[in-house]
C-alpha cells in the first residue's frame, strides 16, 4: 500500500512537471507580448521591460529560472493585469469565490444526481425511468453556456413578469449565487445520474441483492446500503477530477454571469499574455486536479476493499 501511494505521488509530481514545462513552452510560443496594448510603447521601452522581467533570455533559460523560483515557492508577480501584485495573492483573492460557487454546485449535483440515478435504476422501464433518461440525455448534450444563458435570460427579467434573480453578480447577495450554481451543477448532475443508473443496474442484478431481499430487508436499505455502495466506483471516478474542475474553473459560468473568479481570470490572463499569471493559475488548477485524481485512487480502496491497489489500474 505504502509503495503504491509513493508511486502515485511520484507520478503526480512528474505529471505536474510535464504540465509546467508544456505550459511554459506553449505560452512562449504564442506570438505577441504582454507589452503590446492600444498605445504601443517604443522598442526601447519594450526591450527594457523584457530585460527587467527576464523575457529577453532563451526560453529554456527562462524555464530554468522559473522552476528555480517555484522551488522557493515564489510564483512571481503579475506583469500586466494587476501589475506587480504577487500571483499567489491574486489567486488567494479569486479562488474563494470560485470555490464557493463550485462547492455549492457540486453538492447539489451529487445530492440530486445520485438519488435520481438510483430512482431511475429502481424503476427501470417505467415512465419515471424514461423521463429521467430524457432529461439527463438532454442535459449532457447542452453546453454549459447554453444552460447558463438560458437561465440568465429567462429568470432575470427576459420573460415578462419573471424577475427572480439579479442579473449582475454581487458577492454578498445570496440570490446572486443561485443561477451560477444551478448552471454549473447541471451538467455534472445529469452525468452523475446517468452513471449512477448504469452502475446501479449492474449491481441490482447481482446475487447479493436477491439475498438481501430474501432476508426481508426494506427496499430503501437494499438500494442505499447494498446496491449503491457497490455502484459508487464509477461515480467516484468521475467525481474526483470534476470536483477540482468545478471548484476552480467555471470558465463559462463566470464569463456569462461576470463573476470575478479564477476561471474567468485564467482566460483573461491568456489573452493578456500575463505570463506569470498564466503559469500561476495553470499550476494551481493542474495541481488541484492531479491531487483530486490521487485522492480518488486512494478512495477506491476505502469504498471497495476488494480492489488491489498495488497491482495498478488495469
Amino acid at each position, binding site marked *: 500500500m505504502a509503495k503504491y501511494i509513493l508511486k502515485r505521488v511520484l*507520478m*503526480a509530481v*512528474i*505529471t505536474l512537471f*510535464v*504540465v509546467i514545462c*508544456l*505550459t511554459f513552452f*506553449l*505560452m512562449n*510560443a*504564442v*506570438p*505577441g507580448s504582454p507589452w503590446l496594448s492600444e498605445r504601443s510603447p517604443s522598442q526601447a521601452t519594450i526591450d527594457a521591460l523584457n530585460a527587467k522581467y527576464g523575457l529577453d533570455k532563451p526560453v529554456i533559460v527562462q524555464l530554468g529560472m522559473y522552476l528555480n523560483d517555484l522551488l522557493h515557492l515564489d510564483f512571481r508577480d503579475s506583469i500586466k493585469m494587476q501589475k506587480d501584485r504577487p500571483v499567489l495573492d491574486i489567486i488567494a483573492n479569486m479562488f474563494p469565490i470560485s470555490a464557493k460557487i463550485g462547492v455549492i454546485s457540486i453538492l447539489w449535483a451529487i445530492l440530486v444526481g445520485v438519488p435520481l440515478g438510483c430512482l431511475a435504476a429502481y424503476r427501470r422501464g417505467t415512465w419515471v425511468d424514461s423521463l429521467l433518461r430524457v432529461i439527463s*440525455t*438532454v442535459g*449532457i*448534450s*447542452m*453546453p*454549459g*453556456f*447554453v444552460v447558463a*444563458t*438560458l437561465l*440568465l*435570460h429567462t429568470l432575470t*427579467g*427576459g420573460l415578462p413578469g419573471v424577475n427572480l434573480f439579479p442579473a449582475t453578480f454581487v458577492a454578498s447577495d445570496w440570490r446572486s449565487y443561485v443561477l451560477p450554481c444551478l448552471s454549473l451543477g447541471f451538467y455534472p448532475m445529469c452525468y452523475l445520474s446517468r452513471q449512477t443508473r448504469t452502475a446501479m443496474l449492474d449491481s441490482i442484478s447481482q446475487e447479493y441483492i436477491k439475498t438481501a431481499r430474501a432476508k426481508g430487508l426494506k427496499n430503501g436499505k437494499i438500494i442505499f446500503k447494498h446496491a449503491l455502495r457497490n455502484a459508487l466506483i464509477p461515480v467516484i471516478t468521475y467525481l474526483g*477530477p470534476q470536483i477540482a*474542475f468545478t471548484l476552480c*474553473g467555471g*470558465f*463559462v459560468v463566470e*464569463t*456569462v454571469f461576470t463573476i470575478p473568479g479564477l476561471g474567468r481570470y*485564467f*482566460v483573461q490572463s*491568456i*489573452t493578456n499574455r500575463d505570463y506569470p499569471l*498564466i503559469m500561476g493559475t*495553470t499550476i494551481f*488548477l*493542474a495541481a488541484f*486536479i*492531479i491531487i483530486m*485524481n490521487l485522492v480518488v485512487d486512494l478512495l477506491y480502496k476505502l469504498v471497495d476493499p476488494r480492489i488491489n491497489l498495488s497491482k495498478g*489500474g*488495469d
Partner: protein
Amino acid sequence: MADKKHKKVLGSLQPDVEDILSWNDLPANAFEPASTQEKAGFIQDRKSVSYWKDAWRRLRKNKVAMIALVIIILLALFAFVGPMIVPYSYDEVIPGANNIHPWHYTLEDQEKLSEAQMTPDEAVAAAEAEAAVEGRTLTSVEIATIRAKAKVNSSNTDVEALKQELGIKAKPFGYTNDELQRMADGEFVFPHVFGCDIQGRDIMVRTMVGARVSMIVGICCALIVLVIGALYGSISGYCGGKVDAVMQRIVEIIYTIPEVLVILLLGATLKPIFEEFQNSGDGPLQRLVTVLGPNLISIFIAFGMLYWVTMSRIIRGQILQLKQQEYVTAARALGAKGGRIISRHLLPNCVGQIVTTTFLQIPSAIFTESFLSFLGMGVSAPMTSLGSMCADALSGLTSYPYRLFIPAAILSVMILCLNLFGDGLRDALDPRLKK
C-alpha cells in the same frame, strides 16, 4: 497371441483399437461425386448475414437512433447545402440590415404607423400636400379633425398598442426597407429568415456556416483521435512488456493533464503559428491551411493531442484480449509480422468498439469546440461558429434573445442527436449482444 488380447479395464478411457479400425470401413460409394440433389442440400436457405448487415438490422429497429440519424442528416444538409442555396455569405454586410428582426412590416403598414405617430402639425402638412395633389384645399373642419386625431395618436406613445389598434401584424422573415421596395417592384428577394445581426449579416447563413464548422471540427477530431489512438493502443497492447509499461505511463501522464487548460493554451498558441505558415508561401500545404482556416487546424491538433488517450486505452484493452486467440498464433506461425497481425487480424476484430468510440468522439469534440469559441479562443472573426455566435448574442440578450437561442438550439440538438445515434450504434455493434 490371440489369447493375449488386450483386456479392457472397467472404466478405462483407453479407446478400443478394433473400434478405431472400423472407422475406415467406408461405404462403397464414398468417393463418388455428389449428385446435384445432394449439392443443393448444402446450400443455405438464406444468405449469410455479414457483421455490418446484422448491425444495420439491429440499428434500424432502434427508433430513437433512427430519428436521431434523420435529424443529423437534415442538420448536415442545413450546414453543407444551405449556404449554397442562400445567396448571402456569412461575412457579407447587407446595407441597411443592421439588427433587423426575423419578422417585418409591409411598407404600407409602416406608412400607416408613421402617419399615426405624426404630430398634429405634421399631419396637417401631410394632408394639405395630399389635397394639393388632388387639386383642392382642406376646409377648416377637416384640418381640425386631422389635428384632433393626430393629437390623440401622438399622445399614445405605446407603439405596440398602436399597432394593435391599427390592425398591423408582423409578417414572418426579415427584410430591409430597400428589399421590401424591390419586392414591391416584382423582384424576388431571399428573406432573412432569422434576421440579421448588429453588423447587418444574415443570421441564417451564419448559423449554417457555424453548424458546418462544428461538424467539420467534430469529424476531423474524431478521425485524428482514431488514427493516433488506434496506432498507439494497438502497438502498446500488441508489444506488451516493457514497451507497454512505458507507453502506459505516458498515457497516464497525459490522462491527468487538465485537458481544458491545455486546449485553451494550445489553441491560442497554434493559431498564430499556422497563420504565419499560411502566409509563408503558396505550396499545396499552405493552400490546405487556407481552405480550413488556421484556427480550425489548431483546434484539431489541440484535440487530437489530448483526446486520443481514451481511444488508445480501449483499443489496448481489446488487443490484449484478442492477441491470446488461436488465429493470432496461427498467423504468427505462418510468419506474419507484427504490423500485419495488428492491421489484418486484431484491429478488424475490435472494429465495433473502434467505430462506436470514434463516433462518440464527434459530439464531445463539438461540445468542447463550442465552449472554446464561446470563450473567444476558437475560430476567429469573420469566420463564425455556433459557440461564438452565442457569445456575440450575449450583449444584446434582452432585445434580441433569438440570436442566442437559434444557434444554441441547433448546437444542442446536434450534440443530442449525435449522442443518441452513438448510443444506438454501440448497442448495434456490441458483439456481446450478438448471441
